[in-house]
C-alpha cells in the first residue's frame, strides 16, 4: 500500500529578536557629556583666574618682600640656606613671589658684577694695566659670580642662567678689550723698536759695505741684515706700517749702496760710469740681485741731494760773505774809519770774491758820486717796498753803476725799512696773541697771551732764519703770518702733547715720591723706557702707560 502524503516542513523558525537602537540612551549620554564639558570649561576659567590672581598677588608680595643682596650674602656667609629668605615654592602665590624675588636679587647681583667689570674696564681704558693682573681680576669676579649663580640656581634656575649668560658676555667683552689693548701696546712697542732699529740697520749695512771685500760674503751679509730687519718689521700687525717700513728699509739699503759707490769713486760722474758698466767692485754679487731701475733712480736722488747740500753750503758761505762785504762797505764809508782800517777793508772785500775788481774800485772810490738819477730811483723802490732783498739791491746797483757810498746808503735805507716792517710784524704777533700795542705788565690773566706771543715769536725767528738762508733777505710781515699760521696748526697737537707731558710728569712725581728717581728727573719723547724698566725704576703697567704717552709726544 502506497504511503500517504505527509506535511513537508517549510523550515520556518522563530525569528531572532530584532536589534534595537537605544538612541535615547546615546542622546542622554551625549547631553551629560556636553554639560560636563561646559562645566569643566567654566571650572577651568575659574581656576585659571584664581591662579592668575594668586600669581599677581605673589609677584606683588615678591616685589615688596624681596631679600637684598646683602641679606642673601650674609645668610650664605652664616652657613644658612639662602632659600629660606625667599617665598616657599609649590603654590602659584609662592612660585610667583619666588620668581620675582629671584629676579630682583639677580638684578642686584648683575649690577654688582657689572660694577666690578666696569672698574676693570676703566683700568684698561686708562692704559695703566697689566694683562696678567686683568686676567686675575676677571677670574676673581667670575669666581664670585659662580657663588652668586649658585645662590640664584637654588632659588630659580632660569634667573641663574640669565645671570650667567649676561655676566659671561660682559666679562668676555672686557677680556677682549684687555687683550686688544694689550696687543695694541705690544704692537706699538714693536713699531717703536722697528723705527729705532732701522737706523741701526742702515749703519750696519754701510759698515758691511765698507768693510767686507769678498763679494759673495758681502752679498750674504747684506741679505742676512735685510732678512733680520724684515723679520722685525713683520712683527707689526698693521700691513700699512709693514709696507712703509719695508719700503724705508729698501731705500736705506739702496741709498747706502749708492753712497758707497759714490764715496769709493773720485766723483759722482765716475761712480755713475762705473755703475753703468757694472763695474761695482766688491758689490758685484749683491749687484746681481738689485733692481737696476731703482738703483739708478736712487743714484740720481743721492747725487742730487749731495749736490744740493754742497750748493747750499756754498750759498750760505756766499751770503755770509755778502753780508760781511755790506757791513765792511758801510764801515768803509763811515767818516770815522781811518786809512789803515780802510786798507784792511779793501783787502777783505777783495778776498771775499763777492765783488769784481772793477766793482770794488767803483764802490771804494770816495770821489765818485755815481748816477744820482739811478740812485734816487732805486731809493724810491727801497722805500716803497719794491726792493726788499739785499741781493737784489746789490745786483741792481752793480748793473746800474752807482757808487759804493750810494750802495751803502741804499743798504742802510733797506735795513731801516726792514726794521720798521719788523716792528709792524711784532705788533701783528702781539695783537694775534691778544696783547695790546701798548706795553702792559704780565699777570695771571694775560700770562697765556704772553706765552702765545713768545711761541709765535719763536716761530717767527725760525721762519726768518730759514727765509734768510733761502733768499738772503726776508719780508717781516709775511714771515709773521707764516709763524701765526704755524702756531694755529700746531696748537691742537700741542694741547694733546701737553696733556701727555702732564701725565708723564705725574708719573715722574710718583717715582720721585717713591724715591726711585731724584727730583728734576725728566721723561720725554727720547727717554728709553726699556732702560727704565730694566733698571726696575718703572713697573710693567707704568711702562705700558708711558709707551702710549711717549708715542703721542713722538707724533708729528
Amino acid at each position, binding site marked *: 500500500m502506497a504511503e*500517504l502524503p505527509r506535511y513537508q516542513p*517549510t523550515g520556518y523558525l522563530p525569528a531572532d529578536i530584532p536589534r534595537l537602537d537605544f538612541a535615547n540612551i546615546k542622546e542622554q549620554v551625549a*547631553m551629560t557629556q556636553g554639560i560636563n564639558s561646559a562645566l569643566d570649561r567654566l571650572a577651568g*576659567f575659574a581656576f585659571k583666574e584664581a591662579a592668575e590672581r594668586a600669581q599677581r598677588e605673589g609677584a606683588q608680595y615678591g616685589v615688596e618682600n624681596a631679600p637684598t643682596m646683602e641679606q642673601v650674602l650674609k645668610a650664605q656667609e652664616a652657613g644658612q640656606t639662602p632659600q629660606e629668605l625667599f617665598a616657599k615654592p609649590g603654590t602659584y602665590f609662592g612660585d610667583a613671589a619666588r620668581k620675582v624675588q629671584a629676579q630682583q636679587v639677580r638684578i642686584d647681583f648683575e649690577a654688582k658684577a657689572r660694577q666690578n667689570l666696569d672698574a676693570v674696564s676703566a683700568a684698561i681704558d686708562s692704559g695703566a694695566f697689566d694683562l696678567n693682573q686683568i686676567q686675575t681680576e676677571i677670574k676673581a669676579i667670575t669666581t664670585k659670580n659662580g657663588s652668586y649663580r649658585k645662590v640664584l640656581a637654588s632659588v630659580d634656575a632660569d634667573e641663574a642662567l640669565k645671570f650667567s649668560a649676561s655676566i659671561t658676555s660682559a666679562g668676555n667683552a672686557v677680556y677682549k678689550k684687555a687683550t686688544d689693548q694689550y696687543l695694541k701696546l705690544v704692537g706699538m712697542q714693536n713699531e717703536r723698536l722697528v723705527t729705532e732699529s732701522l737706523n741701526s740697520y742702515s749703519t750696519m749695512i754701510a759698515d758691511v759695505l765698507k768693510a767686507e771685500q769678498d763679494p759673495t760674503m758681502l752679498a750674504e751679509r747684506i741679505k742676512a741684515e735685510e732678512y733680520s730687519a724684515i723679520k722685525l718689521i713683520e712683527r707689526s700687525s698693521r700691513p700699512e706700517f709693514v709696507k712703509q717700513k719695508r719700503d724705508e728699509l729698501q731705500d736705506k739699503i739702496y741709498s747706502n749702496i749708492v753712497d758707497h759707490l759714490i764715496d769709493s769713486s773720485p766723483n759722482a760722474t765716475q761712480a755713475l760710469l762705473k755703475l753703468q758698466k757694472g763695474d761695482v767692485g766688491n758689490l758685484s754679487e749683491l749687484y746681481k740681485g738689485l733692481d737696476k731701475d731703482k738703483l739708478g733712480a736712487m743714484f740720481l736722488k743721492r747725487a742730487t741731494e749731495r749736490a744740493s747740500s754742497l750748493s747750499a753750503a756754498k750759498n750760505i758761505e756766499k751770503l755770509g760773505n755778502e753780508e760781511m762785504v755790506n757791513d765792511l762797505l758801510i764801515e768803509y764809508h763811515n767818516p770815522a774809519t781811518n786809512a789803515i782800517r780802510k786798507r784792511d777793508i779793501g783787502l777783505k772785500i777783495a778776498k771775499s770774491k763777492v765783488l769784481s775788481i772793477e766793482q770794488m774800485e767803483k764802490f771804494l772810490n770816495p770821489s765818485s758820486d755815481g748816477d744820482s738819477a739811478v740812485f734816487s730811483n732805486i731809493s724810491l723802490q727801497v722805500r716803497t717796498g719794491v726792493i726788499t732783498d739785499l741781493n737784489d739791491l746789490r745786483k741792481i746797483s752793480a748793473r746800474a753803476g752807482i757808487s759804493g757810498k750810494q750802495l751803502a746808503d741804499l743798504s742802510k735805507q733797506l735795513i731801516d725799512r726792514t726794521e720798521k716792517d719788523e716792528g709792524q710784524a711784532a705788533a701783528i704777533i702781539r695783537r694775534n696773541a691778544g696783547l695790546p700795542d701798548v706795553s702792559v705788565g704780565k699777570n695771571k690773566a694775560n700770562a697765556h697771551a704772553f706765552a702765545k706771543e713768545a711761541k709765535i715769536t719763536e716761530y717767527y725767528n725760525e721762519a726768518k732764519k730759514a727765509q734768510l738762508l733761502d733768499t738772503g733777505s726776508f719780508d717781516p710781515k709775511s714771515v709773521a703770518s707764516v709763524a701765526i699760521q704755524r702756531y694755529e696748526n700746531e696748537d691742537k697737537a700741542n694741547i694733546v702733547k701737553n696733556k701727555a707731558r702732564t701725565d708723564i710728569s705725574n708719573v715722574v712725581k710718583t717715582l720721585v715720591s717713591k724715591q726711585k728717581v731724584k727730583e728734576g728727573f725728566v721723561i720725554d719723547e727720547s727717554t728709553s723706557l726699556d732702560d727704565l724698566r730694566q733698571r726696575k725704576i718703572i713697573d710693567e703697567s707704568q711702562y705700558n702707560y708711558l709707551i702710549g704717552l711717549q708715542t703721542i709726544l713722538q707724533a708729528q
Partner: protein
Amino acid sequence: MRFSRQDLKNFDGPIGDPFNGPAVNKHIGQKYQDPVTATVIAVSLTAVSAYGSIKAGQDKNKMYQMQAKQAEVESDRKAVQYELQANEILRRTNQTNAAVVARGFAGGTQGFEGSAGLIQQVNNTRGGKEFVFALQNADMAKRSGLIQASLYEGAGKIAEQAGYFDAAGKLGSAAYMGGKIV
C-alpha cells in the same frame, strides 16, 4: 564728478583730512582698541551660537520623530510578511490533508479515520507548529517596531533638551567672560 584712473589708485591709501591731518586707519584702530565694542560683538555672536544650539536640538528631535515613524512602518510591513507566511503554512497543511483524504477514499477505506486520520493529525501538528511560529514572529516584529519608535521619540526629546542646555552653557560662559572684560 568724474575720477581719473590715478584718483582711483589713490583711494587705496589713507586719505588725509585737510583739517585733522592724515587718517591713519583711525576707524580700524578704534574697532580693535575699544573693549566694550569687542565684548558686545562677542556676546552677540555667542547669542547667535546659542540659538543655533537650540535649533539644532529641535531639528534633531524632529529627525528622531521621523525615525520613530519609519521604525513603526517597517515593523508593520515585517508583521504582514510573517502573516502571509502563516497563511502559506496553513494552505500547505490543508493541501496535504486533502491529498490524504482523497487517497483514503480512493483506496476504499475511510478518508478521516484510521491511518488517514492519524496522518492528518500528524500533518496538523507539524503545520500548526510552523503556523504558530509565523504568527509569533509577526507579533514580535510589530512589538519591536513600537519599542524602537518609542526609543526614538525619547531620544528626540533628550536631543532637544541637550540643545537648550548647550545654549544655556554658551550664554553663561559669555556672560562670565563679558563680565571679566568690561
